[in-house]
């Protein structure tokens, strides 16, 4: 009976075949390391964000005067388990970003941007951009002081480009001279409808593309189509079950015991358009850019420096032309990669600190170190090619 039902559906949908091919039989290299689970984790947290988002959306009011109370009073105190839903969404966003960053950094480590996976990398980069827009628009919604001033600063960002039209772009983003009802409803619509839909489509493409090309192996060999050294994906799923349970346990710790790092206290002060809070810094996932931006004492150059980082990330497949893959096989690359990570971490941490001359100096130094990584890539590639030719 159940067999015939299965056949009835299968002959009409073909979904079982796709599932069998992509989720069960799809082969991945043996000995995948832990970071290979980050993609699945990211998808899991995306799902958590969507579900918790739908539920907090049921009580949230996109309105200058009502938003703050709808979050801090209605959701946190009136709705049964509302605090849980909000923590889920706020802590989930932090975990999602952390996973995406680590996913990106391991992608660089294993050289996952190289041929034939350039498109996987580029779609991933676009996902990263969309996620930054998502967290920014989401950050604005509770209408606390940080929300308000973050959205003010971000919507003024286009004016960093010294063109007359940019003043207008900034006005168009805000829909007025300052952040108002129209700005909230506008960014709210982006946050709850447009950007998530876009993200779903992009994630689908990202997954389809790497299923087409196969994943990199940790030691940099191309094993796609190699039956001997690969295993069906279904066995990896079991390992991912372990990792998901462990990460969810950490997630639960933050939700039930310590959600403060994800709901900054300064944002519990209602938005006040007449006063900027004394210590204001963006959330940790943007502090590296923030540190670069503020340590360069020129509005336009600071803006461009931040963008240079993002553009270098995007064009990694062009910068790194060496045929060799994976940092495990490239000692020079490995060394530069460590410098890159350290500089990024220092920038991110320094960005949370008050703006002092010392912070600006640190920002400049480590920005340069960060850039050296990208600039050194063609040189390393050149040496590696030479060496290979000699052998």
């Amino acid at each position, binding site marked *: 009976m159940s067999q015939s039902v299965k056949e009835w559906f299968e002959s009409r949908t073909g979904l079982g075949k796709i599932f069998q091919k992509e989720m069960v039989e799809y082969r991945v290299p043996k000995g995948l390391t832990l970071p290979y689970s980050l993609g699945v984790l990211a998808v899991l947290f995306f799902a958590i964000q969507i579900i918790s988002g739908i539920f907090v959306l049921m009580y949230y009011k996109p309105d200058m005067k009502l938003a703050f109370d709808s979050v801090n009073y209605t959701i946190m105190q009136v709705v049964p388990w509302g605090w849980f839903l909000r923590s889920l969404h706020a802590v989930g966003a932090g975990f999602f970003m952390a996973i995406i960053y680590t996913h990106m950094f391991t992608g660089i480590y294993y050289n996952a941007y190289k041929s034939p996976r350039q498109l996987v990398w580029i779609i991933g980069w676009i996902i990263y951009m969309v996620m930054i827009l998502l967290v920014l628009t989401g950050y604005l919604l509770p209408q606390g002081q940080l929300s308000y001033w973050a959205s003010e600063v971000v919507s003024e960002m286009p004016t960093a480009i010294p063109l007359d039209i940019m003043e207008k772009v900034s006005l168009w983003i805000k829909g007025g001279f300052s952040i108002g009802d129209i700005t909230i409803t506008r960014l709210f619509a982006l946050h709850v409808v447009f950007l998530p839909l876009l993200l779903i489509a992009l994630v689908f493409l990202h997954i389809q593309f790497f299923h087409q090309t196969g994943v990199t192996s940790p030691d940099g060999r191309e094993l796609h189509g190699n039956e001997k050294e690969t295993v069906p994906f279904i066995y990896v799923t*079991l390992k991912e079950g372990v990792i998901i349970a462990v990460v969810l346990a950490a997630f639960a710790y933050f939700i039930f015991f310590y959600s403060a790092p994800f709901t900054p206290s300064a944002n519990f002060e209602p938005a006040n358009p007449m006063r900027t809070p004394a210590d204001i810094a963006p959330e940790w996932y943007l502090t590296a850019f923030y540190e670069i931006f503020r340590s360069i004492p020129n509005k336009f150059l600071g803006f461009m420096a931040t963008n240079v980082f993002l553009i270098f990330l995007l064009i990694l497949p062009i910068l790194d032309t060496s045929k060799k893959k994976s940092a495990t096989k490239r000692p020079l690359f490995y060394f530069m990669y460590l410098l890159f990570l350290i500089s990024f971490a220092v920038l991110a941490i320094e960005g949370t600190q008050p703006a002092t001359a010392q912070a600006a100096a640190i920002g400049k130094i480590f920005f340069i170190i960060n850039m050296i990584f990208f600039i050194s890539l063609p040189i390393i590639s050149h040496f590696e090619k030479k060496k290979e030719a000699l052998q």
Partner: protein
Amino acid sequence: MKFLRSIPIILIIGGLFYALWSGILEPEKWKVPHSAELIKAKVSEAQLAKEGEKTFKMFCTACHSVRYKEIYPTFVNAPNAKPLFKLLMKKNNGFLNRYIYESAFALQLKGLKAAFGSVPPDLSTAYVYMGEGKLFNFIKDPQKVLPGTKMPNMHLSDRQVVAISTFLKTAILPTEKETQKRHLIGTFVIIFLIVLAVLFALYRKAVLTEEGIED
């Protein structure tokens, strides 16, 4: 060897998240004095909050509201405002949102603004955004914390200040009992997930040995 190479990376990324999420980067500038800590240790939170509500109504409601606790400035009880206030409270189950509150008492709030330069804020969320230490020191001596502020020094005792601060805590944060409940649920959830992880690992091992797959 393979593992050694990943140690620095784990240290850097792990250290980054630890620093960003543990709060070590934002040391508290203002501290609650020892004498006040002693009061908190001796008296239960519920008792302090109850005392605090009374003290708050006595000293603070000339200017401030705590809307999340249905406490409004004394001007709402003036003869010209009281009927409207009572009606609004009844119609809105005690919670006046900002449209209602700021429209109904626009004149009174304007008066406060004229007297103090800005409308004295609603204190429903003050405990969180000021932090316990800053809040305590601010109530004790406003000029010390925010020089130039129009907030007068009410010359309250430590006990009164602790009580007010505890009362404001209950306006935005869960009560001690509720927090304990959340911690209990959290502990169960974490234990459950760890058990699940162990089961997954055992199952995986059993499957792999049986199928003869190395991974």
